[in-house]
């Protein structure tokens, strides 16, 4: 009796660690192609930054210069970042939806509409134009706006419609139109992935 109780207690403690390990192996096997990517993947970039002691979104002071947000068109992408961002040159991304507004993802606001001025504090800013017809970009914007107020989770994987982050919503909005902005087939989408996409052109860059 005591022995069986002891076993049940041990099992209860081991269920979640074992499931975690199993999931890690399955996800690792399904994404083993990332092992051959010498650079560019989120994990590779983060590990390289971790070695240098950079572990988060970074911080710093804004650099001088007026950002030409007025040149943006619906469907354009805005990236912001700091010199010590752990996952590339940029830490944040937003999708321009028109009228000086961006759809962004924040932990305390979810997917939400914000003014372009929220990017003013970044020392690195990059404005990207997706090279696609205006109607395709309009549909991408429409897709993204339908997800407003959905839950933000920083480590949201690419699949699923319940958990989002600032880059996943942009990637999914364009993926739904047949445009894959992720060149490496990564587990997560980093702002860097959007900047490196063959589908985009840089229309303005500051601090890079």
């Amino acid at each position, binding site marked *: 009796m005591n022995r069986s109780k002891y076993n049940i207690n041990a099992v209860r403690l081991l269920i979640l660690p074992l*499931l*975690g390990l199993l999931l890690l192996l399955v996800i690792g096997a399904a994404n083993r192609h990332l092992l051959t990517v010498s650079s560019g993947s989120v994990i590779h970039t983060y590990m390289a930054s971790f070695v240098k002691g950079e572990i988060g979104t970074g911080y710093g002071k804004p650099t001088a210069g007026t950002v030409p947000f007025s040149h943006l068109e619906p469907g354009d992408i805005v990236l912001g970042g700091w010199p010590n961002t752990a996952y590339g040159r940029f830490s944040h991304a937003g999708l321009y939806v028109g009228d000086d507004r961006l759809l962004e993802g924040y932990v305390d606001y979810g997917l939400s509409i914000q003014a372009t001025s929220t990017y003013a504090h970044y020392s690195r800013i990059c404005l990207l134009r997706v090279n696609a017809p205006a109607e395709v970009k309009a549909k991408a914007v429409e897709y993204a706006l339908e997800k407003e107020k959905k839950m933000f989770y920083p480590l949201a994987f690419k699949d699923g419609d319940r958990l989002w982050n600032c880059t996943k919503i942009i990637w999914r909005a364009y993926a739904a139109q047949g445009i894959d902005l992720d060149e490496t087939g990564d587990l997560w989408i980093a702002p860097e992935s959007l900047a490196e996409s063959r589908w985009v052109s840089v229309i303005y860059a500051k601090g890079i």
Partner: protein
Amino acid sequence: MALTRAYIIHISAIIAIGLAMYFPGLDIVLALVYLYLVYKEAGYWRQSLNRAGMASVALLWQAPGYLLGGAILLTAESISQFSYYYIFMLELWGTPLLPLFSLLPAWTLLDRPLYYYLLFMLVPCLSLHYYYPALIKKKTKSRSAGSN
């Protein structure tokens, strides 16, 4: 021992459920498994711990969540350069229940989504979830005493 086991369950749930989000739907199943495991774990310890002991474990088990939530609510966010991360850390700490929160409607209150407020309620709710078997024990004892 009870506290260590509770931490192991919670931290392994953060990892397992975070990974389960790769397969949408599985994360919800594991969130329910987590709640069941915590309930059974607390049910086991109620046999050897008194109510004060159970309450202590329930509170200390969620101490990181209380500290993070308190720091954010008391606007102590500016006390360190990492303060910006407190809300992220609180959300990561709450990962085991986020799949269930994500099923709720995208309502907002004072311009913030419902789940934002739930992040702060999650921590005391988990403490209560752990303490609940101790309450049942008390009621059962009272009923037995009444019938005698």
